[in-house]
């Protein structure tokens, strides 16, 4: 069965000032799958991810050409409301970044700024359950989110991303600040989330990409070198540079 692409990019180029950071990226991110973006530091992984929900708009001197389509709609066209876009394409960052508020209010926050009045408790509960955190926090929803462990904080941030019911979740190194056990929990969580969401994850940790993803893209110096099934990439990559990178010969 061929899944349909949730996000596609066509000849996506990005410059920070004179620095050509992404070069003609053409990729299709399949619906309800986990796609991993791998590559050495500075190859443009995070920049690519941030193009998908226009987070790079916030950086001065950025020039973007080409197309990024979400469900067939170009996210860079003028009619696209960036707030709506970021609700549809949620994001989880490297370091857990809960607000200095209670657990409940952290997850409720996106709903409150949307002006949602009714059913907030239920939606918070659902998001915390989906992020596999509910059982650990249900009796202390009013304590500060900052008192949670790093792994719990990251799952809280995932719950906060889920509460607006996005279509796509972008994850930028979601486990790099976590210990192996918290990492394993997040990875298991990804497998359950992909049934409902499309996930794109940037990771430095190749083993993590191999474990969790179904498709993998290898970027090098802003170019997309190879994009294929994760199994193919990790057992028999087509490009010598991919092979050199995943076998640790450079990067």
């Amino acid at each position, binding site marked *: 069965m061929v899944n349909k692409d949730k996000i596609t990019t066509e000849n996506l180029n990005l410059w920070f000032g004179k620095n050509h950071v992404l070069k003609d990226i053409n990729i299709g991110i399949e619906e309800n799958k986990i796609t991993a973006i791998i590559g050495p530091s500075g190859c443009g992984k995070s920049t690519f991810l941030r193009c998908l929900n226009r987070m790079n708009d916030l950086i001065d001197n950025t020039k973007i050409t080409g197309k990024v389509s979400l469900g067939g709609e170009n996210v860079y066209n003028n009619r696209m409301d960036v707030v709506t876009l970021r609700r549809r394409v949620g994001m989880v960052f490297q370091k857990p970044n809960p607000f200095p508020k209670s657990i409940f209010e952290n997850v409720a926050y996106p709903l409150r700024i949307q002006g949602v009045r009714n059913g907030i408790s239920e939606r918070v509960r659902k998001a915390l359950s989906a992020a596999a955190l509910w059982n650990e926090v249900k009796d202390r929803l009013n304590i500060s989110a900052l008192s949670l462990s790093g792994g719990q904080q990251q799952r809280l941030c995932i719950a906060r991303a889920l509460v607006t019911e996005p279509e796509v979740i972008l994850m930028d190194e979601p486990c790099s600040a976590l210990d192996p056990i918290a990492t394993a929990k997040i990875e298991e969580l990804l497998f359950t989330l992909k049934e409902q969401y499309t996930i794109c994850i940037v990771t430095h940790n190749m083993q993590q990409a191999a*474990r969790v993803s179904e498709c993998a893209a290898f970027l090098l110096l802003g170019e997309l070198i190879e994009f294929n099934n994760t199994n193919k990439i*990790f057992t028999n990559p087509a490009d010598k540079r991919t092979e050199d990178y995943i076998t640790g010969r450079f990067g």
Partner: protein
Amino acid sequence: MRHFDEEKELLRKRLLSMTGKVEESIKKAIKSLRDRDESIATKVVNADAEIDREEVDIEEKCIELIARYQPEAIDLRTIIGLIKINNDLERIGDLSVNIACASIRLLEKPQLKPIVGLSQMTGIVTGMLADSIKSFINGDVQLARSVCVRDNEADEMRNHLIRELLTYMMEDPKTISRCMDLALIARNLERIGDLSTNISEDVIYINEAVIIRHHRAL
């Protein structure tokens, strides 16, 4: 359950179903000889391609699991064990085909003697195979060790059969080609016992991380 465990479980089930097919092949190959029915032997020969395909699929899946999950400790031993057991099962499938082919040749000529010893031997080696796989599925090292011990029984039966066939050959040289085929079948059955022993040794390796091949202490 970890995602890796789910994958491993699926592989285990596939290996179990492959064992079923292989076991069926051995039994049918001998049945064709006992019932003097060539069509059964032909079925064994034709079924081998499917076993071969399954072996390749399982091996590819194991390679994928190593590449993607970098298994350690018991997870690593299990995947390595799976690769070896898978290979042994496929070889057992080939040996059944050898038996079926010998049976087809034998059926062209009148029966030399009732197929009693070979039937008994088949019972022993299919029992060894079934128990070796059962020990793998259940992680039962005691059962695995019992399979290794039973291998002597299979060897003994083969020797006995060959001694018996020698008397036929000495008595009447016209029986030589049939006796050779019957000896070949005994030899193939004995090899199935050996491979079942290998599987059991791998089960012990998977569970206890000790290699007991080449007559190291059980």
